[in-house]
C-alpha cells in the first residue's frame, strides 16, 4: 500500500450562508499527481487554504503523514494559492530569498528555479514590473525552491499564454516524474486529464467523483447492450476496434467504447457479425459530459 501523505476527513467551511466546503473527504497518496477539478467557486481554494493552515475549518480534520499540520510540514510543501503573492517592490531574487529564508534553506537553488521557469534574465527586476504570466511563473519557481516533497498548485496556468500553459504542464509532469507528489487544483478538465493520475471532482464543496483519471476521465461512451446469447455477444465484441472495456451487469453487458464511436457504429458492427441486439442504450453520461454540463450551468 502506498503511503498517504494527506488525509482529509469530513472537512466543512461556511462563509456566512455559503457552504464553501461541505463534508469533504480525500486521501492523497505519495507519488501521485492529484487533480482537484471543479468550476470556480466549488471550494478548491478553500480546501487548499484549510490544509495549509491559513483558513480555519468549521469542522472536520486533516492529517499530514498522520500528524497535525506544523511549520515543519509546510516547509516541505511548495505551494501556490490562487494568485502569485510577492512583495511588489522587491526583485524576483529578493522575493525568492525571503521564501528560502522562511523555509530555512540556502540560496543555491534560487538561480536554478529561475532558469527553469525562464525568468533568469529578469531576476533583478521588481515583481510589480512583471506581466501576469511572469508572476505566475515566479510563483511556480518559489514553489520549487528546495525540492519540496509535495507541491500544491492552485490554478498554476492562470494567466499564461498557450505556450506558457504547455510549458507549465510539461514542467509539472517533469517534477512529478521525479517522485514529487502534486496536488493540482484546476477548473480545466483538459489540464487535469493531461497532467494528473488521480482526480477528485468538486462541486459546491462536495466530492462528486474521485478515482483514477484513466478510469473516470477517459473519453469514452458507455453503452448497455443485450442479446439472446450474452457469451457469444461478448466474444464478438472483442474484435471491435474501439473497445475500451466490457463488464457484465446482470443480463446486460456494459460496454465502454473509445472516442467518437456511437451506438449506431456498434450496432452496425454486431449486425455484420450476425448478432441482433435485444437491448441497446447509451447509459449514463460520461464524467466529461457531466463536468461540461456543470461548467455551462455556472456560465448561464
Amino acid at each position, binding site marked *: 500500500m502506498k503511503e498517504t501523505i494527506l488525509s482529509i476527513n469530513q472537512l466543512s467551511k461556511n462563509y456566512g450562508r455559503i457552504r464553501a466546503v461541505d463534508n469533504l473527504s480525500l486521501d492523497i497518496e505519495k507519488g501521485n499527481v492529484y487533480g482537484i477539478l471543479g468550476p470556480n467557486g466549488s471550494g478548491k481554494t478553500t480546501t487548499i487554504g484549510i490544509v495549509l493552515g491559513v483558513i480555519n475549518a468549521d469542522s472536520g480534520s486533516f492529517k499530514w503523514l498522520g500528524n497535525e499540520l506544523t511549520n515543519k510540514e509546510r516547509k516541505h510543501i511548495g505551494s501556490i*494559492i490562487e494568485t502569485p503573492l510577492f512583495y511588489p517592490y522587491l526583485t524576483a531574487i529578493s522575493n525568492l530569498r525571503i521564501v528560502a529564508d522562511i523555509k530555512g534553506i540556502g540560496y543555491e537553488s534560487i538561480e536554478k528555479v529561475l532558469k527553469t521557469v525562464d525568468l533568469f534574465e529578469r531576476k533583478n527586476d521588481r515583481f510589480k514590473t512583471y506581466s501576469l504570466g511572469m508572476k505566475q511563473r515566479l510563483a511556480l519557481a518559489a514553489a520549487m525552491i528546495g525540492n519540496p516533497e509535495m507541491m500544491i498548485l492552485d490554478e498554476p496556468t492562470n494567466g499564461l499564454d498557450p505556450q506558457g500553459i504547455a510549458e507549465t504542464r510539461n514542467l509539472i509532469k517533469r517534477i512529478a516524474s521525479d517522485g514529487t507528489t502534486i496536488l493540482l487544483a484546476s477548473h480545466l478538465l483538459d489540464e487535469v486529464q493531461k497532467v494528473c493520475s488521480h482526480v477528485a471532482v468538486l462541486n459546491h464543496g462536495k466530492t462528486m467523483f474521485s478515482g483514477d483519471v484513466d478510469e473516470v476521465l477517459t473519453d469514452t461512451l458507455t453503452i448497455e447492450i443485450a442479446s439472446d446469447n450474452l457469451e457469444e455477444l461478448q466474444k464478438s465484441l472483442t474484435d471491435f476496434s474501439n473497445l475500451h472495456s466490457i463488464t457484465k451487469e446482470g443480463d446486460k453487458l456494459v460496454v465502454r467504447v473509445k472516442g467518437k464511436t456511437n451506438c449506431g457504429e456498434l450496432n452496425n458492427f454486431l449486425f455484420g457479425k450476425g448478432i441482433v441486439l435485444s437491448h441497446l442504450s447509451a447509459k449514463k453520461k460520461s464524467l466529461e459530459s457531466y463536468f461540461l454540463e456543470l461548467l455551462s450551468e455556472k456560465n448561464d
Partner: protein
Amino acid sequence: MIKLLKIEYQKIAPYKTFWVLFGLYLAVLGVVIFGTQSFINEFFVDVRKNSPIPIPTVSLYNFPDVWQNITYLGGYFKIFLAVLIVILVSNEFSFRTIRQNIINGMSKSEFLKSKLLFIFTISLASTLFLFISGIILGLTHTTYVSFSKVFNNTYFLFVYLLELFSFLSFAMLVGFLVKKSGFAIGILLFYSYIIERILWYKIPEEVSQYFPIRMIGKLIDVPNTALMKIFGINFRNFVNFTDLAIVVSYTILFVFLTYLLLKKRDI
C-alpha cells in the same frame, strides 16, 4: 530570532517608502531636539525685555537634565514610527504576503515575533539616536562634566524605549485589526488624538488617567525647567513605578490581542 530579523530586513531593505519616512522622522527629531532650546530663548527675547522680573535663559541640555528633556520631546514624534509600523503591517495584508509567508512555513506566532522584533529594533534605533544626541548636547552645554552627571538620569532612555515599544505595539494591533493602511492610519490617529482625548474629559479622572495612550504618554512627564519654576509649576522629574507596570501590562495586552486576531482569523 536572528533569522526572523533577517527576513524582516529583507522585506524593508529596498523599500523606499520606509527609508524616506524613517529618514524624515530622524531629521525632524534631530531638528527639534537640537533646536528647541534656542527656539524657546528666541521666543522669550521680547518678553524678557519688558519683564519686571528677570526671566532666566532656558538651558535644556545640561547633564543630567538633558535626558528627561530630550526623551520628553522625542515622545511627541513616536506617531511617525507608529504610522510606519501600520504601513508595514497592513502591506502584508494588502499584498497578502502574510498568507504566503505562512504557507511557506512560518508559523503565525513566528510572524508576530518577527514584527515584534522589528518594532523593538526600530524603537532601539530611535533611543540610540537620542542617546547620541544627548551625549553631544550634554558635552557641549555642561560646564562641569562628571561620569555620574552624564549617566545619572540615563534611565529615561530605557523608559523612552518602553514608551515607543508600547505605542508601536498598539499601532501593530491596529494594523492587524484593520488591514487597510489608509484606514488603519486614520483609526490610529483618530483614536490617539481625538477619541481618547474626548474620553479624558467625559470620563472621571480616576478612570481616564489609566487610558492606554495617556498612560504611555505620561511615562515621562513634562520636565521642570527654570522657566516653569518661576510660574510655580512643578512636574515629576522621576518615573513612577506604577505607571511602568501599567504600560508593560498594556503592551502585553496589545501583543496578546494581536496574537488572538492572527490565530482566529482566516488569513
